[in-house]
């Protein structure tokens, strides 16, 4: 699975994001994390193989989420569906 790591000063939390390369909400979320210097890792699901897509969906559903993007997972515990600025800020303390 091809993931991209974005480094940042704000690295207290482990942040994983499932996104779509074509999605404007996903771009906005990536920009928000970048602007706040959050260190995160993202996977553009539409660029993945069928096998990886299946694994990603399984991962999302095992955490009780829906495969709608973007999905932000903080510290393997908190899952945020969609670009919810307030929820992301709260989870990351920014």
């Amino acid at each position: 699975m091809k993931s991209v790591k974005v480094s940042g000063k704000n690295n207290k939390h482990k942040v994983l994001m499932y996104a779509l390369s074509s999605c404007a909400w996903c771009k906005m979320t990536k920009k928000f994390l970048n602007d706040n210097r959050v260190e995160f890792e993202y996977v553009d699901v539409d660029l993945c193989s069928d096998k990886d897509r299946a694994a990603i969906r399984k991962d999302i559903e095992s955490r009780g989420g829906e495969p709608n993007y973007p999905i932000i997972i903080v510290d393997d515990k908190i899952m945020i569906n969609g670009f919810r600025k307030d929820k992301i800020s709260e989870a990351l303390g920014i």
Partner: protein
Amino acid sequence: MITLEKVRLRAEADARTNGCYLNPDSGFLNDLFEGLEQNEERYGYPSCPCRLATGKFELDRDIVCPCDYRDPDVKEYGCCYCALYVSKDVFEGKTTMQPIPERRPKEKLDKAYAVATAGVAGAKAPETTVAVTKSSQIKLKMWYCKQCGYVCFREEPPYICPICKAKREMFAELQPRIEAQG
């Protein structure tokens, strides 16, 4: 060849025809146009940039922009799922735009997923049991709008008539019959 300009002109024309507006945030709007252009280039049709498409038209038909869910979403939430199309209030800045819930039925998503990943070991929709069908096995039917006569050939009738905006209930199946005489 599809260009960003073609995508823009098509969206503008569609908004004019259907009484809705394009997202007033020019940067966000440009991202959406780029997403649509990207999808049209790789799939051959402009599927919603914010939904995961399978690349199989029959499975993605309902999420080809403007998607089947646009009109009810704009009416209820002020914008469609990807927020390309917005209501007059959102366009004029009277209400703010938020990400909205997915209206696409989960069964459609499960079915698309099951077909797209058929053959991948261990890949099955975990929450619901979905019969894996090949896209060639999808049964297409002819539907007509009882209000305006619009005819389409697809698995299910559209959410809303693209011509006269009649609801799905106004669609009936058309069963063509060929009679030979003589």
